[in-house]
């Protein structure tokens, strides 16, 4: 950023040491930075749409019992009198074969989709990032070799199939599905961070910190890590979408959320049996999946554009 305002001005030099004034300046700077970032982000309507979608879905998931028209339909419930009703006034998305409101179940479905995404990422990101960071910084040493060879092994199979295998060996439920996906997901972060870290370790600001005598912890977490927040955040946002897809695939074959709990994948799988006549039973949960994934993808792309514009 070119900026005219930073001309040296000795007259005010000393006054900045006043801690009160200091904090004020820092607060103002921070506000300006956020303001600028938001301005750039908001230039792209698609990014804003993505953010709105993500926020809405999250709020709906959190307040599902209040938002859903028939919250009790997410629990064991039957109403054969209203079974297989097509979309219409009372049931916006129609009802399924035992009379449950599909809209309500989709809203609760968001819940499990997001829980899965958040849980998987909060397990996977710290582990993957830490391993990649250490391996990248100690590139060429035995630490690097061990971490990266193990990572390679995990990366040598499509992650989905390993997750399926692990999930199938364990009891089929949401927790185990999350564990299985997490177990297969960390290497992708390790690989991403490894690449970034092994490039950053040669940057002169890292070398500078070394020649000054900073410790490894400082270099890893204060010098290197802050410089890869943007690609990691971007990947996390895109991955939320992927985890939702994988979660729904697991539930589709019965390895994730167990009925009658409304998992989006489970609902699609169950509804597929009633195609084509009662199409709404499968199609609306399928659309719900697409909406979640779309929201996170738009947000992720928006973040990527924002970060790449920040850097140039």
């Amino acid at each position, binding site marked *: *950023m*070119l*900026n005219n305002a*930073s001309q*040296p*001005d*000795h007259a*005010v*030099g*000393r*006054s*900045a*040491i006043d*801690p009160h004034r*200091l904090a004020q*300046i*820092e607060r103002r*700077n921070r506000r300006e930075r956020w303001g600028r970032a938001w301005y750039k982000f908001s230039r792209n309507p698609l990014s804003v749409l993505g953010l709105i979608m993500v926020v809405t879905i999250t709020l709906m998931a959190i307040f599902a019992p209040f938002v859903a028209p028939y919250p009790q339909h997410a629990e064991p419930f039957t109403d054969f009198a209203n079974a297989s009703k097509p979309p219409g006034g009372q049931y916006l998305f129609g009802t399924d074969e035992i009379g449950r409101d599909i809209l309500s179940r989709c809203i609760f479905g968001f819940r499990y989709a997001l829980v899965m995404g958040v849980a998987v990422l909060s397990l996977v990101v710290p582990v993957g990032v830490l391993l990649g960071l250490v391996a990248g910084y100690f590139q060429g040493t035995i630490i690097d070799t061990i971490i990266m060879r193990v990572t390679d092994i995990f990366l040598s199979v499509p992650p989905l199939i390993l997750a399926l295998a692990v999930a199938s060996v364990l009891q089929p439920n949401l927790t185990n599905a999350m564990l299985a996906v997490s177990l297969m997901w960390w290497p992708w972060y390790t690989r991403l961070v490894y690449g970034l870290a092994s490039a950053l370790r040669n*940057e*002169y*600001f890292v*070398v*500078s*910190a*070394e*020649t*000054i*005598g*900073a410790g490894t912890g*400082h270099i890893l977490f*204060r*010098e290197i890590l*802050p*410089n890869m*927040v943007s690609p990691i955040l971007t990947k996390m946002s895109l991955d939320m979408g992927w985890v939702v897809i994988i979660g729904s695939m697991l539930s589709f074959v019965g390895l994730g959320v167990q009925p009658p709990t409304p998992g989006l994948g489970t609902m699609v799988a169950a509804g597929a049996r009633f195609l084509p006549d009662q199409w709404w039973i499968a199609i609306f949960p399928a659309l719900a999946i697409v909406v979640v994934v779309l929201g996170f993808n738009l947000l992720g792309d928006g973040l990527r554009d924002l970060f790449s514009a920040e850097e140039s």
Partner: protein
Amino acid sequence: MSEIVLRVEALKKHFVVAHKGLIRREPVTVKAVDGVSFEIGRGETVGLVGESGSGKSTIAYIAMGMYLPTSGTIYYRDRDLFREKKRPLDLKREIQIVFQDPSSSLNPRQTVRQILELPLRIHQAGANRLEEVVRLLDLVDLPAEVMHKYPRQLSGGERQIVAIARALATRPSLVVLDEPTSALDVSVQGKVINLLIRLQRELGLTYLFISHDLSVMRNFASRVAILYLGRIAEVASTRQFFENPQHPYTQMLLSSIPVISEEEEKLRPAKVVSSGEIPSPVNLPPGCSFHTRCPYVMDVCRRVDPALVEVGDNGHVARCHLHEQPLAQK
């Protein structure tokens, strides 16, 4: 010369760049630094000049402990820099470096204050860091507000000045300057150089100055050593170096510089016109490594590597058969 601050002794650094063969992997090495010796006295600015592949930056990085020498060593005030495996903090404190490109040497995610506080935290425990940061900025003529800025909010010149302030934060006695102005525009480099000169005078600093820019060298260094493919070609006091260059490579370099006045024109040895490519440091020519481009090349140059011989006063030495007395030419 007064007290010796830095003594480089028969320094060699060979990098393995590749391996040959499938089973018995023979290393392919680059002799980046190949037997370099020189000394820096207290308060001096010694300039190392050279083109790409000359090894000038490698020497700086070895002095900083970023690489270990293949053989030979460097002494800081009689302390062998490589006796301990890991350099002790008090030695790190004494020797600091300013890198070429401040946009790479300052962490883009830290404010100037955070950048300057790191050396203070490590080397000045107990000091009031905020006051110290203000003092450092004042020392380099930057307003205190700069401490809240991120590097990208500063101009190139200001960034380099922040990097200088960081190097001074440990209160070092020797500062290595690795091309400190070559990433800057002409209109700001003067300010940085003049600041360095003032700081040297005020703080009694000793500089090892690495550069490829002879015009800057002329106005900054007190002594100049010129490197060609990892070896010293000539060392002289700055005045002698520019007014009475002895090595044909020095002459070629001087004659290649574009200048802007008649006065400078006279300093260019017109007869040594640049020709030939710089050989790859992987395949050094036998004998004198400059013989492939030298206008005065003799038979002996292709076979025998010349030694450094005295060619003038004040330790003016050159590595060239032209200056070796008939002895070598037999």
